[in-house]
């Protein structure tokens, strides 16, 4: 077996850090995280910049993921494929939570609903597959954006349309929330799109650890929350479903 190529391993480590929690890092920060000399990290960054995998922010001089890489990552999984592979787990989530389930992917800064399972109470409901939802006012959108920080980074100050008094409209607090979402692995939205409704979602990863979609439940706040916080049991169901779908797509169990 040929040996591993050290510089590629290091480049991968850099890309992983940049795709993680903090969207922008300085050379010194990267070097510190990786325990490498600054010169070495700088050399690798230069090459990655040339092929479009990273870019440097002109103001701060920090590095972030570049458009070439992001394009490769986000346009990968077919939504119809995702629906087909996720079918059983989405059904299971609806059965366990008693709420409706949706799977979304990012589509030009919005959430495209690729799958919808009715709330299992046999009431009249209409299929929402193919509809678009605002990404900053849904748990699905937050779960997706938390792992596509470059999109969040590009949000203009007035991009966050207000739907209710609870909608997060301040870009700075929105970015902070996304970082928190990325850290804990799930997102919630409480009355931010429709008054009285809430949603909980978690990201779906494929085998390259790229977030290709998000799965979540939605329903009235009083069913989804306890004392104004998403119920732990429901959060668990959502996370388990997200993990099961990710495993189905070849992600390493975690």
């Amino acid at each position: 077996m040929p040996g591993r190529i050290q510089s590629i391993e290091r480049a991968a480590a850099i890309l992983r850090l940049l795709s993680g929690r903090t969207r922008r890092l300085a050379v010194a920060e990267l070097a510190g995280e990786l325990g490498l000399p600054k010169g070495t990290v700088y050399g690798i960054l230069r090459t990655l910049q040339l092929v479009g995998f990273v870019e440097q922010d002109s103001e701060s001089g920090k590095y972030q993921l570049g458009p070439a890489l992001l394009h490769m990552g986000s346009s990968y999984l077919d939504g119809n494929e995702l629906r087909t592979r996720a079918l059983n787990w989405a059904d299971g989530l609806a059965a366990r939570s008693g709420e409706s389930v949706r799977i979304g992917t990012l589509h030009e800064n919005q959430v495209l609903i690729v799958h919808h399972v009715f709330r299992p109470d046999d009431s009249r409901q209409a299929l929402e597959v193919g509809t678009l939802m605002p990404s900053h006012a849904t748990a699905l959108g937050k779960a997706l954006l938390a792992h596509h920080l470059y999109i969040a980074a590009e949000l203009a100050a007035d991009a966050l349309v207000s739907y209710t008094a609870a909608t997060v409209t301040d870009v700075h607090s929105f970015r902070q929330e996304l970082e928190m979402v990325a850290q804990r692995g799930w997102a919630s939205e409480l009355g931010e799109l429709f008054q009285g409704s809430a949603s909980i979602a978690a990201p779906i990863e494929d085998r390259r650890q790229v977030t290709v979609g998000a799965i979540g439940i939605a329903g009235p706040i009083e069913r989804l929350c306890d004392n104004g916080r998403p119920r732990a049991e429901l959060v668990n169901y959502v996370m388990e479903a997200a993990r099961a779908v990710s495993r189905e797509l070849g992600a390493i169990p975690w």
Partner: protein
Amino acid sequence: MDGRYIASVDQGTASSRCFVFDNGARIVSMAQQEHRQHFPRPGWVEHDPEEIWRHVLSVISVALQKAELSTGDLCALGIANQRETTVLWDRRTGAPVHNAINWQDTRTDRVCRELAREFGQDRFREKTGLPVTTYFSGPKVRWLLDHIPGLRERAENGEVLFGTMDSWLIWNMCGRHVTDVTNASRTLLMNIHTLEWDRDLLDVIGVPAAMLPEIRPSSEVYGETGSPLAGVPVASALGDQHAALVGQTCFEPGEAKCTFGTGSFLVLNTGPRPVVSNSGLLTTLAYKLDSTGAVYGLEGSIANTGALVQWFRDNIGLIGSAPEIETLALTVEDNGGCYFVPAFSGLFAPHWRSDARGVIAGLTSYINKGHLARAVLEATAWQTREVVDAMNADYGSNLSELKVDGGMTADNLLMQFLADVIGVPATRPIVSETVSLGAAYSAGLAVGFWPDIASLKHNWHKAAEWVPKMDPAERDRGYRKWKKAVSRAIDWLDDDDDD
């Protein structure tokens, strides 16, 4: 009662699966493995029974492992299986004497034509509810006995056994040679009124009684699994379509479901008496659970639906996975006038024409791959429309909705088009793996994991509904074209084609 879960095996045409369910009929774990399909000649389809048995063992272990369960956590194992596929094996060694002949295989065409001439289609229909065609097991057994030297004698001496996949699996699991009524009802060898093997039929088809399994209900403990999964009661066996009817809890006469997989199968519960079809449907056993008597059904069998998508993927290569057919189809607005009749194994219900072969009709230089993808998907919907029409005619009342399930229900474009062309809503239940669920239900009833069928009804919930939107005039034009395309597929084979 030990164990908190029920496992079921769905031994299908394309793959074997194992699902573990909890008491609320929710999926706890699953594993799946595809097996090889052998196509030794045009029209021939075979499976390796040993490979299938290995896969079945492996999917059960993997499903348990994934949920960190052991056999001790299971209170029973149920079996659902691809129907009609025929296995012959040596009683002493347990080794198959030949590859299994698959239900889609058409090699018995000549035998079937002879049988129809000698005995008459009507007498087959009267006794079995079925027309004599290549689809069913009896003629496949006959073909093997005719073509493998010395086999007939060994079969007469009881040295060689026949079984459908359920029998083969139960033999390997528990060492018993049994089958369930639903599987037996697909052999052309069982009398559908007495539910016993029929002497006349055995004689005319030429199958020795000594090789046949004992016919049992669909829900009872047949035995316990031996190593390496020792000690689990094997408590149900049903043909996959019958299992799906149970999984959809269609327990009342007039309730129907259609399962969309390799082929698609619309089954209607007709209650305690067999209903004769005048419209090209099959009369079949629905199920025979322990607590009830035999329940009958009418069935519209479509040989090729998902298999066409599979073929488009594997043999044409315009898509990399089955779901991509929808993406490709969505690159165009409509089929551009193109129709695809996938009569790869002839046409089943309601035509029963083994002389048909596939056609693509309406080709012009305008047609691109998107139109072809549309035509591939629409073929499933139009074929379903034909069996819905037949069902409505035979049963004398119209379906007000169609309960759908199976892998193809993941295709949103297809399900919408289906609702459009059948003109009634299509509804999908919260478990679309109804085959596995039905096998689990039947096993669970046998061991008391669920008390009765009424308790199962509560688990059925609507997970999706597609409502017809198409303009009726457009639908009628499309249907007219589809029928024309079908007429062009029929009468393709000539008598000397297989010489």
